[in-house]
Each structure stands twice: as structure tokens, then as C-alpha cells.
């Protein structure tokens, strides 16, 4: 199984956890945007953003290395940026012996800047989810004018994902139990196995559809009229105002200060 079914939320008695979820969502987006706007080769700027991310990780009492430890997730994607070290014209620093491709200083600078940007950005996303319960994140999205029906749909998905993941796990276990390797018989072709996987997907779809019909009926029985009521009402406190103002000023200041080396 490839599901990481452990909840990503890490409860801690920290002031970051107590911040209004809207503040945290806005700050995470602002941080990621700042990383994206940081010019190529602005190493000091990247270092400052990294320090900020580490500081936020410390302030949420998750430990210095929490976000670092999980931030490798997006790195395989770096492969698509790798050709840049060869294709960006500039000062040649290395030539591969057989093929004669040239690696340029400018290409390396651009490549590493992209990697740093994405690596730093993902830490904000990791911290947001670790310090905010997912239902609160969804509530914040709704409060920030994301269409409520979409937020409700995402909320349903979050609620039933774990149920359907269990259902899938049972189907996969059943497939594994039926699929003994018999001595002297060939393993079936990928096409045949793909057909089996597809049939499993089809029957999982039917089960999900029928489940959604039962869920809908249960909702109607409880008085559902097409609107998702929510009880949680939060007010922005003084602490939230101070944090969001200070953090946004800091990020804008960083952008103004950072220069490409």
C-alpha cells in the first residue's frame, strides 16, 4: 500500500497552532509566492527564507528538522529542470568527456535556484498542514471566499478517503491472496493484469457511487437542504493581526533586499 494514512496534523501547545487558520493559509501562500519571486541566484534571499521556515518550525514546537525531513517529496521533479545546466548559454565550466555537452555557470545557477525555490516552498505547505487540523484549513478556505460547495466537496472527500482507502486495501489484499505464483506456469501478461486492475477500479467505482447514494439519503433524513451549515465562528484576534502584518512586511522586505549575487 502506498497510502500514508497517518494524519499529517501534529498537535502541539504552540502559538502557531493557536493562530487563526486564515492567517496561516494566507501566510503559507505568501511565503511560497515570495520564494517564487526570489530572483535567480539570490542566495542570501534563499538563505533568509530557509531561516524563516526553520524558525516557524521551531515556533510550532515541531523541532528544527520537522519540515526539512519531509521536504524531499517534490525533489524527484527536479529532473525536468536538469537540462538547464546544459542548455542555458554562458560561461562553460565543464564539458562531458564523450558527448561534448557543456555545463555552464549560468545554467547551474538557474538549476540550483529552481531547486531551492521548490524545496523552500514545500516546507511552508508541510508546516501549514502540521500546525493546522485539516477541517480548520478547509474552514479557512471557505472563509477566504473559496466557493462553499467546493469546500464542502473537498471536506467530503477528506472524510471518505480513509473509508475508500480501506476498501481498496481489502480489494488489493484479496487480489494478492488469489494470485499465487504457480511453479511452471507463466505469469499473466501485463494486459491481462491491467484488465484485472481495471475491473477492480470499476467495482470500486460502483461501491463508491452506491455509498454516496446512501450518504445522501442519510443526509436528507437529517434535514439536508443543499446547504452545508457550519458552526465554527472565529474572530481575528490581536495576535493574528500582529503576526500577519509582521510576516507580510518581512517577506516584502526580503524581496526588496535580496539581490542576485
Amino acid at each position, binding site marked *: 500500500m502506498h497510502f500514508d494514512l497517518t494524519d499529517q496534523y501534529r498537535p502541539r501547545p504552540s502559538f502557531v497552532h493557536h493562530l487563526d487558520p486564515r492567517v496561516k493559509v494566507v501566510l503559507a501562500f505568501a511565503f511560497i509566492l515570495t520564494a517564487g519571486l526570489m530572483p535567480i541566484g539570490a542566495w542570501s534571499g534563499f538563505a533568509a527564507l530557509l531561516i524563516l521556515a526553520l524558525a516557524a518550525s521551531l515556533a510550532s514546537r515541531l523541532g528544527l528538522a520537522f519540515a526539512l525531513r519531509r521536504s524531499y517529496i517534490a525533489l524527484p521533479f527536479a529532473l525536468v529542470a536538469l537540462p538547464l545546466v546544459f542548455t542555458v548559454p554562458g560561461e562553460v565550466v565543464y564539458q562531458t568527456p564523450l*558527448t561534448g555537452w557543456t555545463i555552464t555557470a549560468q545554467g547551474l545557477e538557474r538549476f540550483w535556484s529552481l531547486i531551492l525555490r521548490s524545496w523552500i516552498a514545500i516546507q511552508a505547505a508541510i508546516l501549514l498542514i502540521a500546525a493546522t487540523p485539516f477541517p480548520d484549513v478547509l474552514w479557512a478556505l471557505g472563509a477566504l471566499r473559496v466557493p462553499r460547495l467546493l469546500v464542502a*466537496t473537498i471536506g467530503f472527500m477528506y472524510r471518505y478517503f480513509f473509508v475508500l482507502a480501506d476498501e481498496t486495501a481489502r480489494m488489493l489484499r484479496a487480489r494478492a491472496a488469489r494470485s499465487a505464483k504457480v511453479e511452471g506456469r507463466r505469469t499473466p501478461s501485463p494486459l491481462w493484469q491491467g484488465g484485472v486492475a481495471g475491473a477492480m477500479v470499476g467495482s470500486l467505482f460502483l461501491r463508491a457511487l452506491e455509498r454516496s447514494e446512501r450518504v445522501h439519503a442519510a443526509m436528507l433524513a437529517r434535514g439536508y437542504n443543499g446547504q452545508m451549515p457550519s458552526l465554527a465562528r472565529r474572530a481575528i484576534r490581536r495576535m493574528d493581526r500582529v503576526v500577519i502584518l509582521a510576516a507580510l512586511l518581512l517577506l516584502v522586505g526580503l524581496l526588496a533586499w535580496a539581490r542576485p549575487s
Partner: protein
Amino acid sequence: MLASPLRMHIPDGFLTPAISVVGWGIAVVMIIVALRRTRRQLDDRMVPMMGVLAAFLFAAQAINFPVAAGTSGHLIGAALAAIVMGPWAATLIMTAVLAVQGLLFQDGGLVVMGWNIVNMGVIAAFSGYLAYTLARRLSGESRVAVMAASFAAGWISVVVASLATAIELAASGTSPLVLAVAAMGSVHALIGVGEGVITAAAIGLLLTARPGLLQAGATAPGGRTAAVILVGLAAALLVAAFSPLASRSPDGLKAVAASQGFLGLGQAAPYQILPDYTVPFISHPALTTIAAVIVGTLVVFGGAVIIGRLATRRQAAGL
């Protein structure tokens, strides 16, 4: 979560903020229209049904099968959702899937999520739906025809979406256009086979178990607008690919064309669908790779239609 390097979920940092904002702009318009259309289609069943089906797609992505050389086939699911629920509902389902993948599992970025929604939601759903309905119209009603059309829909949705992803990466100066298109296109030509097989088999099962479902998908809203939306998005992406924006970036096409040896690397990508990944008479290298993908698409689509027609004719002849 299984992570192969050339997935389509773009992480944050790989697209410029300006391009990310454009992506969110398109995504927001599409999501709002999708919400309206789907609400009209499903009424108050919409929220639970779309939510549970999004959970289904996310879970179904874990059902995989070995293909070759350590890779495994699994589902993205936009085409499957579009065939059964219609393209607008599929856009909504994919948006929910991508939102949870990006927010909760950091699979795909937040600021770039707009493009991830446009690629794997809108473009994949509408191209898959269009391929399916067109192939069905041309090839008839037999079971094989339906499954062949589903295969084509699955394959085309993945390849077209990967092409769009490559163009966005190139327009951001993250990857040279020719290489991005060649690498993304060729890898996803293989991944698309897995998608196509699973989609076809799943639709085959639904055809046996709940034939009424597929009729509902065929009458879902969005059929008529599908072509318009796709052509519009394709035109926008092509403009982006060849605009000064793309060629002004330091890794312009010239540098790639100059180092022809490097172009060879793109062609030698492990899975290629056309022998040389170039089409004669077209000299622009990026245009050639895009043309090659289009030819591949036509071949898959044509094959599906021919197989479907033959099967329908045999059935009609009572064989």
C-alpha cells in the same frame, strides 16, 4: 505515495508566479462553471456524490499493475470520471482530488495548483470526454467499441495533459520546450497505455453491471462545449509556447537546436512512440515534437475507431 520523477503534479517553484496566477485565473473560471453545471445536473446530491467519487479516484490510484522495467500502470482517472459523470463533474472531482493531494500530502504545489487543476482536471477530462464521444459516434454500440473508445479516451487524456504541463514548464523557463515536450510526451505515452487499459476495463465492468450509468454520462452537460473549451485552451498554450515570453527566457530554443547532440537525448528517451520523434517537412524542433504527439494521438484514436467499427459490424452481422 508512489512517486515517479515525471509525474504531472507540478510542485511549487517550478512555474513563475506570473504564469501561476494565469493558471489560477483559468482554473477559477472553470471551477465556477463546473459548480453551476454540476449543481444543475445533480441538485443536492452534488456535494456527497462528488466528494465520495473524488475519494474513490484518490483511492483507486493505488490499484496498480506492473507494466515493464519496474514501472507500474495506475490511474489518474479524469477520463473515467468524464465518461461516466460528464466533463464538468469530472473537472470538479479532479479539483477535489488535486486539492487534497496538494494540501494534505504536498503532492503538487499550492501556488501552482491552478495549472495542476487545468492540466489534470479540465484538459484531461475534456480531451478524454471528447475522444470518447467522437469515437463512440464513429464506431457504434458494440461492447468492444465502447471499450476501445474508453482506451483511446484514457490514453489521450494523459498524453494531452502531459503536453500542456510541458508547455507550462517551458514557458516558465524551467525546462527547454523541445526536451520537456519530448520527455513528458514519451513517458506519458507509456503511462497512458496503463490509464487506457484500466479505463477500458473499468468501463467494461460498468457496461455489464450498470449499463444505465453510461447513458447518464452521455447526456451529461458539457458535451457541446467540450470542443470549444479544448480548442481555446490549446490555442492559448500554443501561443504561450511560441510567444516571446518563452523564447526570451535564457534557455531559448536556439541553444537547444544548436546543440543537436542534446536533442538526441530527448529522442532516446526510454519509451518512444514514433521512431525518431520527428516528422519530416516541419523544421522547428519544438513544433516537430508537438506534431509527433499529435500524430500519435490520431493513431491511437484511429485505431480505436477501426477496432470498434469492426466489432460493431461483426455484432450486427450476428457473428
